[in-house]
């Protein structure tokens, strides 16, 4: 089989990539190993995420009260749940004035299937199977991928460009095509999550909002309404803490819901889990060189920091949009002889990811200053970052302040390690944002340890 673009993964990133390519007249095949609908975590969207969905012409598909909830903002409850701060979703008009906006919470089984079905309806070819290994030209450029089909056969898919949208499976990184996969700052965290029925919501527009409960550094919970009845609830904490509890995932979630914050307990007086309790450890990582001759990664396939502010879906969709443009340029003859035809895309994407990472690090390292920025110093600039406006008008004042306080420098030169980041060796210079891992430094955990 021969296509212009082969896309590994039919999650939101892969489906969006395919649809953006179709808008530019480029055909693609999506290789997906699972049968949809399938469960996936990552249900809350930022304001700008809604913008990408509108750019795909999918606004009316989101009008589905059984599977989509309108989100107006995010409330973070402080320890003990007595106080909270709220950030409303706000957009920017053509004069860069803020205006109130909304976005969505989605059930991922439903949303991902809608996206994939739509991509296929618009002309994408679905290959139901598992990508097993990349194929190379003599000069080392990627020229496609081998697929083990769901029905057992093998299929080689030849492509001009192979897009890795395989999510946390990080297909091309595992195959050694990209540069090394680094552990991220939140690599020793574990998320355990499920869904509950009958939780107490606020009345009015706030009933669909995301709530975050902050217990202590690196220990928090999310509350994301998925329909009128069901709420997604997750507990995020150091993996060592979870293992130390010696509880099943189910019992752990049920107990934490009542212990993490009195406010969460008030909202879920009786814990009734309506989904299996699941775990994701080690979700934080980054790959620095994630594009090259014949390939490009988008979304979780090259970087994920931390779920606290729901940046994941936005990033994978936005990267699909930017990446499709870079691929269209390439197909039209641009950068044919470049060492890396997608170097510009890669630089842009990392600059946006860096904004998110620095703001997340500030939240954990300097929570008081973070709250001051939101309330007093730079409310509009913080709203911009939390909405996802990280690819324009950055660095803004809030980001510059965050970088100063974190003593972090960022530059376009990817051969230089940004100061104060994990790219410096840990033993010569303890990294600021990793200083407080609560004695976890030698602690390692792998997926198999979590049953």
């Amino acid at each position, binding site marked *: 089989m021969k296509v212009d673009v082969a896309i590994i993964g039919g999650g939101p990133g892969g489906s969006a990539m395919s649809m953006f390519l179709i808008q530019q007249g480029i055909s693609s095949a999506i290789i997906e190993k699972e049968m949809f609908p399938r469960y996936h975590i990552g249900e809350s969207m930022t304001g700008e995420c809604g913008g990408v969905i509108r750019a795909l012409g999918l606004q009316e598909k989101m009008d589905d009260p059984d599977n989509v909830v309108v989100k107006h903002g995010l409330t973070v409850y*402080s320890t*003990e749940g*007595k*106080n909270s*701060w709220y950030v409303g979703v706000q957009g920017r008009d053509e004069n860069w004035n803020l205006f109130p906006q909304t976005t969505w919470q989605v059930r991922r089984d439903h949303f991902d299937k809608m996206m994939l079905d739509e991509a296929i309806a618009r002309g994408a070819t679905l290959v139901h199977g598992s990508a097993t290994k990349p194929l190379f030209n003599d000069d080392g450029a990627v020229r496609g991928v081998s697929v083990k089909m769901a029905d057992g056969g093998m299929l080689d898919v030849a492509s001009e460009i192979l897009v890795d949208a395989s999510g946390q499976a990080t297909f091309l990184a595992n195959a050694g095509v990209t540069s090394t996969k680094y552990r991220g700052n939140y690599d020793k965290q574990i998320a355990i999550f499920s869904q509950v029925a009958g939780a107490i919501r606020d009345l009015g527009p706030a009933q669909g909002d995301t709530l975050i409960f902050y217990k202590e550094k690196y220990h928090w919970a999310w509350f994301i309404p998925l329909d009128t009845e069901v709420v997604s609830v997750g507990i995020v904490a150091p993996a060592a803490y979870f293992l130390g509890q010696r509880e099943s995932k189910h019992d752990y979630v049920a107990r934490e819901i009542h212990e993490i914050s009195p406010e969460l307990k008030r909202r879920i007086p009786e814990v009734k889990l309506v989904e299996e309790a699941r775990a994701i450890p080690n979700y934080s990582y980054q790959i620095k060189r994630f594009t090259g001759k014949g390939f490009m990664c988008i979304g979780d396939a090259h970087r994920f920091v931390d779920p606290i502010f729901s940046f994941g879906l936005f990033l994978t969709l936005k990267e699909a949009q930017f990446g499709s443009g870079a691929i269209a340029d390439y197909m039209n003859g641009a950068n044919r002889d470049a060492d890396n035809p997608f170097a510009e895309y890669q630089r842009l994407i990392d600059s946006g990811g860096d904004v998110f990472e620095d703001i997340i690090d500030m939240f954990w390292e*300097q*929570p*008081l*200053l973070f*709250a*001051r920025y939101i*309330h*007093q110093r730079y409310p509009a600039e913080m709203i911009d970052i939390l909405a996802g406006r990280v690819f324009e008008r950055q660095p803004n004042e809030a980001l510059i*302040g965050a970088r*100063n*306080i974190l003593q972090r420098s960022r530059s376009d030169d990817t051969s230089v390690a940004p100061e104060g980041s994990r790219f410096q060796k840990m033993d010569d210079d303890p990294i600021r944002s990793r200083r407080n891992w609560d004695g976890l430094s030698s602690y390692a955990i792998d997926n198999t340890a979590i049953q």
Partner: protein
Amino acid sequence: MSPRTSIERFILDEILMGSRDSIGPDESLLASGVIDSLALLRLIGFIEEHFDVVVEDDEVVPENFESINVMTGLVASKQ
């Protein structure tokens, strides 16, 4: 009013809403939970406005607001 008294009055009236009559100059306010983080932000806003000073980002740490004496020291260092 001395800086000490103005800060004490603000905490008593605006944060504790009259639930107490006085605060010792060295009484620990944060560790003991008399003031939580959002109240602290209001207090910082008050200090900036009342004394016409700017609290810099690297000074926004709990240690600088632990007691009324520590706060008056911070204000004095800026005037």
